[in-house]
Structures are given as structure tokens and as C-alpha cells.
């Protein structure tokens, strides 16, 4: 599903964010990405979502080489990925329902079918009662769940989550991890970056450990 081979990412100015990165994530696998801030976790996720391109090496995501991916093919790769951001990236000019609707509008889904899917996704993350709320009126945990609903509404086969529990209390974190676990059980490939030890203990899975841009375990 995701295969990195000797991937380097060097930013202009010489900073090397990722060095000699090689790993593979199988379909349906759940994998943690751990390490201190600045270790390169976000960069790695950005490479997978083709937000950044590798400087050298091959990064294959769903059979597509990110390095040589054409700009016109990029949207279609991203439609297969559900992206969950630490800062949620929700739009505050529309309500929760419309936020989750956006990916389906982009893909050109039929309106009635979309509405059903949006409600199903909101139900999944426990926000069905809040569909009319503006995201700004939601708590941090609720915003994170809304972001998850938006990421899954399109039924992607891969979910990438960048510190999804980063700013949350333990209680909320567990709630969110339970949601992820349920996706894992239905065969979604998951890559979750975190530095939360308690989560790693409670929901054990394979870990990719990063340290200063290198894979250490």
C-alpha cells in the first residue's frame, strides 16, 4: 500500500528532514509513527499525501510514485487518502454538515446520496446531533472528530492522521483511538503519528520510530 525506498527529503537551505527512509506498510495494517517533534513525522505524512515531494528515493503510495506524480493526477490520489490534521483545517464559514459534505462535492457525488453518507460519517464520530453547528462552536475533541468524519466520508482506503490526539485530554484521545480502531477492523490502512505513550500502550500496533529524520526502529 505504502512503500518507501531510500527516501531523502532536503529542504532548500540544506535542512535534511528525512534521511534514507525505507519501510513498507501493507494493506489493512495499522502503524504508528512516533518520535519527538521535529523528528520528521509530519514531513513523512506530507510526502505520502504528496503535499511535499521526496528529494530522492522512491515513495510509492497505492502504486503511484510520488516523486514523478503529475499535478493532474494528484487530486485523484488524494481522494483515496483520508487526511486528519492536528489543526483540523475545518472551514468556519459553514456548518459541520457542510464541512463533511465538501469531499463529496469535490468528487461530484449525487446530492441525496451525499447527504446520507455525511450523516453516516457524522454518526460514526458521534456528531450527528451537531450537524447544524458551526465548527467554531465545537470543543477541541469534537473538532478533531469532525475532521475525522470529513476524512472518512469519501471511504478512503488509507487514513493518515497527524497527531490526532495531540491537544486532547486522555478521555477524548481514547474516544478518538476507538474510532480509529473500528476503521482498522473494517480493513482501512492507518498511519497515525503520535508521541502519546499511553495510547501506544492501550492500543498496541507496529511503530515506526523516527529520530532526527532517520528510522530507528
Amino acid at each position, binding site marked *: 500500500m505504502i512503500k518507501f525506498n531510500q527516501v531523502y527529503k532536503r529542504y532548500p537551505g540544506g535542512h535534511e528532514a528525512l534521511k534514507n527512509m525505507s519501510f513498507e506498510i501493507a494493506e489493512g495494517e495499522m502503524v504508528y509513527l512516533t518520535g519527538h517533534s521535529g523528528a520528521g513525522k509530519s514531513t513523512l505524512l506530507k510526502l505520502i499525501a504528496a503535499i511535499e515531494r521526496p528529494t530522492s528515493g522512491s515513495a510509492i503510495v497505492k502504486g503511484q510514485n510520488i516523486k514523478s506524480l503529475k499535478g493532474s493526477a494528484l487530486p485523484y*490520489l*488524494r481522494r483515496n487518502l483520508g*487526511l486528519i490534521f492536528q489543526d483540523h*483545517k475545518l472551514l468556519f464559514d459553514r456548518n459541520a454538515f457542510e464541512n463533511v459534505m465538501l469531499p463529496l462535492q*469535490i*468528487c*461530484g457525488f*449525487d446530492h441525496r446520496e451525499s447527504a446520507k453518507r455525511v450523516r453516516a460519517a457524522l454518526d460514526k464520530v458521534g456528531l450527528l446531533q451537531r450537524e447544524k453547528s458551526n465548527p467554531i462552536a465545537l470543543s477541541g475533541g469534537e473538532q478533531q472528530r469532525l475532521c475525522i468524519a470529513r476524512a472518512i466520508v469519501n471511504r478512503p482506503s488509507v487514513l493518515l492522521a497527524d497527531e490526532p490526539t495531540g491537544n486532547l485530554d486522555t478521555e477524548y484521545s481514547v474516544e478518538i483511538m476507538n474510532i480509529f480502531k473500528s476503521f482498522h477492523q473494517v480493513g482501512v490502512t492507518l498511519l497515525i503519528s503520535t508521541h502519546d505513550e499511553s495510547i501506544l500502550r492501550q492500543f498496541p500496533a507496529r511503530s515506526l520510530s523516527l529520530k532526527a529524520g532517520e528510522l530507528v526502529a
Partner: protein
Amino acid sequence: MKNIVLQHLRVIRFTLQRLRHTPGATLLNLIVIGIALSLPVGGYVLLKNVQAISEQMAGTPQISAFLTIGTSQEEISRISQQLKEHAAIDRIEFVPRDLALKQLQQSTGLADVIGGLAQNPLPDAFIIYPIAMEVKKLELLRDDLKSWPKFEHVQLDSSWAYKLEALLNFGRLAVFILAAMLSFALIAITFNTIRLQILTQREEIEVSKLIGATNGFIRRPFLYFGLVQGLLGGTAAWLIIAISLKLLNYSLANLTHLYATSFTLANLSWSDSISLLGFSAYLGWLGAWLSVSQHLWQIEPR
């Protein structure tokens, strides 16, 4: 296919909502576009009207050729024959001097003056209707006829119409320059409106790109906005012109009444109206397109 149409309809509805959402800015933009367009289009309408009037007055071009007084009947019939055989001449009309005098008496009300004349001062004349309409060819024919020995004076009657035509051409050029400049203004207005929209929707664009929106999808609402704004601006220009003409016609009626004639300024024809709307919509679209291609690539998710 049905889905694609529905998507586009949704974008159009969304565009209209957005226009309604900021009524003040929308109204100002439409007025500015309307005024900018109504100047050259109004000029065009006036030129069209002047042209129509001039055509009414000028009719087909003719050449009057006056014979030397005392030309004999045989010579007249010989010249008549030569004129009929001339390749550049459609038909001719012979006006004998007696007839010309009678016509002059009847038409001008100078009967007393003319009656007092000892002899008829008018020459025999041919009225010649050429085949060609172009001013160059007419002048050529006139010069040719001038060189014939028995013609005292040859006159191209509608030369004033050609002077008017030259004046109209000048007017057309002025309108064209005005139209070109104000078209740029319209493009610039749309360019800037869209630029501001893109800036305020930066976040939405970024998020849309992250969740798989194609460039076409992101561009679409902006292009429709430009198109609709241009179309509505064109409609505003049409209304400005229609209302102005109504007012002008009203006062023109008073004026022409005094001169015992009547004519009214015609509004834009159907096809001209459609051209105006189509062109303004296109310019709006173009401005939006330029703006989008200038600014959209700068917004990439980080």
C-alpha cells in the same frame, strides 16, 4: 452527465448567492461595468442612427452631367447612346432643359422669379446611375465623363454622403478605441474582484486541494462569478442605453415637431443586444480566468 450538469447548476446558484450576499459591492461593480460598457455601446447606437438617417437622405449615388448650351439633338442622341453602352453605367435619364425649368418652378416656389426670365438658363442634362457604389470608382467615372467634349459640368451628387461616410468612419474608430480601452477596464475590474475573493477564500482553496479537488473544480466558481458579473454588467449597460434613448427620443420628439418631420433614435437591435451581453459575459469570464491563473497556483497546501 446529469451529475455534471447538476454540479454546474449548483456552482451557478452558489455564485448568485454570493452576489446577493454582498449587495453593496455587487451593485457598485455592476454600475461601474454598466457605465464603462454603455459609453462605447451608446456611441455605437448613435453612429448607427446617424448612418440610417444619412442612408435615407442620400439614396443611391448619381452623377449629373450638364451639356453645353446649344448642343444639337443629333449630338444628344449620340451621347445618350454612348452613355448607354458605357460599362460602368447602369441606366441613364435625360432631363431636357424645358423640363428642368418646369420642375424648378414647381418644386421651389420660385415661379415668379423664373417666369420673369427672358430665356431658359438651364442646360440639358443627363442623370447617370452608375453600377458601382464605391467612392473611388464613382470618382473615376466622373473624371472620365468630364473629359467628354460636350459636357460642360459633371457633378457627383452624393459626394456629401461620402464625406459623411468618412466622418462616420472616424466616429467608428473612436468608438472602437473607446470600446477597447473600456473592455480592458472591465477585465481589470473582474480581475481585482476575483483576486480579493481568492484571498478571502484562501483557506477553503487550500483545504479543497488537500481533499482532492482538481484545479478545474477550484477554478469553476470564480469563472462563473466573472461570467455572471460580466453578464449582469452588460445588462446594466443595456438598461442605461435603453433609458437614455427613451429620454433623448422624448425631447427629440419636441424638437422634430418644430421642423415638421419626425424620426426617433432606434435602440440596439436584438442581435446587437445579444452581442453586447455575450461580449460582456466573455470579458468577465476572461478577467476571472486571468486572475485565477495568476493567483491560484500560489495557494498550495503546506
